[in-house]
C-alpha cells in the first residue's frame, strides 16, 4: 500500500494519472487515425478496413448501452437498419446528397431511440427480449411498406456511382466522432451517473440522480451511431434491402465484438473488433463454410473463459491500471 499522501500530493498524483490517460487516448487515437488515413493511399484492402471501422463504431456504441448503462439491446440492428433506409430513401427518392442525408440518418436513430425509451425501465432479460421483438417489428413494418418507398424485396439502389474512397473517409470520420464522444462520456459526469444507475438504479435515484433522464441520454447516444453507420454503409455498398439492413447477424457481431474486447472501457470495443474482424477474415478465407459456426463457438468460449473480454481481463489482473487505460 503506498504511503498516505497529503492533499497537494494527491492533487498532483491525480493530474499525473490524467495526463497518462489522455496521452494514451491521444496515442491510440493517433495511431488509429493515421493507419486508416493511409489505407486507401497505400492501396490496402479498402473493404476490409471499411468494415473494420464500421464494427469498431458499432461495438463502441453498443458499449455505451451495455458497458456504461447496463442494457443489452439485442435488437441493436434496428437503429442500423433505420439509418440505412433513411439515407437510401433521401438520396434516391428526394435527391439529397449523401452527406446531407447522413445527419438525418443519425436523427432517425435518435427518434427510434426515443420511441423505444419506455422499455428502458425493464430489467436485463426482459429488456433484451423486447429489444429483439421491436427490431423484428421494425423490419416487418419496413418490408411491408409500399414498394416505391422502400423497394420491397429488391431493396433500394442509391444511385449510379458508389464512391468507395469518399465513403471510406466518411466512415473514418464517424468512427473518430464516436470514439471521441465515448472518451468524453467515460470521464464526464453523465458517464458517472450512467454507471451509478447501471450498478444500482434505486440507490442512484436516492442519491439525487435523475435516473430516467440519465438513462435516456445514454440510450440516445447509443442509438445515434449505429444509425450513422447504416447510412454510410448504404452509401458504400450502394444498395439497401431489409434482409441485410436488419440482419440479426449485425447485432450478433456487434455484441460479440464488444464483449470480446471488454465492456466498460473505451479501448475494449476497439481491441475486440480488431481481434475478431481479423480472425474472421483469416478464417473466412480458409474455411468460408465454417464462418458462422466459428462465430457461435467463439461466443460460447468467450462467455465461458473470457467473460470480461480481453481488456477487462487485463484490468482485472492489474486493477491499478484502470485509472490510466481509457
Amino acid at each position: 500500500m503506498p504511503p498516505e499522501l497529503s492533499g497537494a500530493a494527491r492533487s498532483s498524483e491525480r493530474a499525473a494519472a490524467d495526463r497518462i490517460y489522455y496521452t494514451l487516448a491521444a496515442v491510440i487515437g493517433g495511431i488509429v487515425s493515421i493507419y486508416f488515413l493511409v489505407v486507401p493511399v497505400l492501396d490496402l484492402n479498402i473493404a476490409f478496413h471499411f468494415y473494420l471501422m464500421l464494427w469498431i463504431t458499432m461495438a463502441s456504441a453498443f458499449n455505451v448501452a451495455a458497458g456504461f448503462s447496463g442494457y443489452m439491446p439485442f435488437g441493436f440492428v434496428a437503429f442500423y437498419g433505420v439509418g440505412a433506409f433513411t439515407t437510401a430513401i433521401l438520396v434516391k427518392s428526394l435527391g439529397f446528397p449523401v452527406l446531407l442525408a447522413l445527419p438525418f440518418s443519425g436523427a432517425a436513430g435518435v427518434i427510434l431511440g426515443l420511441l423505444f425509451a419506455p422499455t428502458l425501465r425493464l430489467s436485463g432479460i426482459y429488456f433484451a427480449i423486447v429489444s429483439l421483438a421491436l427490431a423484428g417489428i421494425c423490419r416487418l413494418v419496413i418490408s411491408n411498406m409500399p414498394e416505391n418507398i422502400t423497394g420491397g424485396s429488391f431493396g433500394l439502389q442509391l444511385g449510379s456511382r458508389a464512391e468507395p474512397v469518399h465513403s471510406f473517409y466518411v466512415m473514418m470520420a464517424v468512427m473518430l466522432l464516436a470514439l471521441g464522444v465515448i472518451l468524453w462520456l467515460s470521464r464526464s459526469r453523465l458517464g458517472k451517473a450512467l454507471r451509478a444507475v447501471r450498478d444500482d438504479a434505486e440507490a442512484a435515484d436516492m442519491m439525487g440522480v435523475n435516473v430516467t433522464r440519465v438513462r435516456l441520454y445514454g440510450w440516445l447516444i447509443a442509438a445515434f451511431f449505429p444509425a450513422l453507420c447504416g447510412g454510410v454503409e448504404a452509401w458504400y455498398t450502394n444498395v439497401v434491402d431489409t434482409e441485410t439492413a436488419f440482419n440479426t447477424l449485425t447485432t450478433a457481431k456487434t455484441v460479440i465484438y464488444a464483449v470480446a474486447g471488454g465492456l466498460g472501457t473505451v479501448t475494449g470495443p476497439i481491441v475486440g473488433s480488431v481481434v475478431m474482424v481479423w480472425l474472421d477474415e483469416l478464417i473466412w478465407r480458409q474455411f468460408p463454410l465454417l464462418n458462422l459456426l466459428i462465430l457461435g463457438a467463439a461466443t460460447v468460449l468467450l462467455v465461458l473463459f473470457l467473460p470480461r473480454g480481453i481488456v477487462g481481463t487485463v484490468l482485472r489482473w492489474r486493477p491499478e491500471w484502470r485509472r490510466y487505460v481509457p
Partner: protein
Amino acid sequence: MEILVLNGIVNGLIVGGIYALIGMSLTLLYGVLRVVNFAHGEFVIGGSFLAYALFSNLGLAPLYSLPVAALAFFALGWGAYYLLLPRLQNSDDPEIMSFLMMYGVSIALAAVMLLIFEADSRSIDYSFTPIAMKVGPIYVSTARIVAFGIVVLLAAALTGFLFRTLPGKALRATIMNPEAIKIVGVDVVKLSAFAFALASAIAGVTGVLVALVFPAFNPFSGAEYSIIGFIVVVLGGLGNPVGALLAGILYGLAEQLATVFLPQAMAPIIGFGILVAVILIRPAGLMGWRAQR
C-alpha cells in the same frame, strides 16, 4: 366465413399446443436454472431435422422418431449442461451471461444444421392414411390431429410429472426458491442437469411434431420458434409451466385467427406486438409468480 373461423380455431388449438410445449420446456429451463435459452428454437428445429434425416435415410416414420428424439436430446441436454453451465454461476451477472452464451449456441447450432442440411426448406413427405379427417364441417390433416394427440399426452404427462412425482415437485420447488432448495439438501447440480435434459428432450420431440404440423422448415427457422417461445413464456409468467401451457394455446389461437382477418405477412408483427405489450404492461404475465426487478 364461419368455416374460416372454425378452421382458425381448430388450427389454433393444434398450433397452440406445439407453442405450449415449446413454452413449457423453455419456462422450465428458466425457472430452474435462470437460463434464458436463446437456442431453444434451434433445439426444436434440430428435432425436426432429426426426424427428417431418419425418414429420408432410414425410412423411419415420424412417430418412431419421437422416442429417438426424446432420448437423443435428453442425452445432449445432459451433456450440454455439464459442459456449459456450471462455470456461469460464478460470474457477475449469470442471467445475461447465460443469455449471451446461449446466443452463441444458437448461432453455432444453426450453422451446424446449415452445414449438414444446407439452406433449403425441408419437409417430411410422410402421409397418414387417410390423409385428412373430417372434424365437424371442416377437414383437418391427419398428421395434425395425430400431432395434437401427442401434444395433449405430453402436456398431461409433463404436468403430472411436475405436480405428482417427487422429482417433479423438487423441480417446482427449485423454481419457487432456488436458495432454499440447497439448504434442504437436494443435489442442485444433478437436478439442474436433469431439468436441462428434460427441457431439451421436450424441445426435440416438439421438433418432430413441428415437422408433422408445419409445411416446411430450414436451419434459420429456429429463431422464429425461439421468439415464439419467449412470447409464450412471458405471457404465461416466467417459470410457470401451467401458465406457459395456457399461454401457448391462447397465442396459437390468436395467431391462427389473425391470419383469417389479416394478411399472412402481418402475423409475426402481431406476435412481436403482443410480446412488447405484455412486457410493458404486465410483465408478470397472465399468471406470473415472480414480478421482474
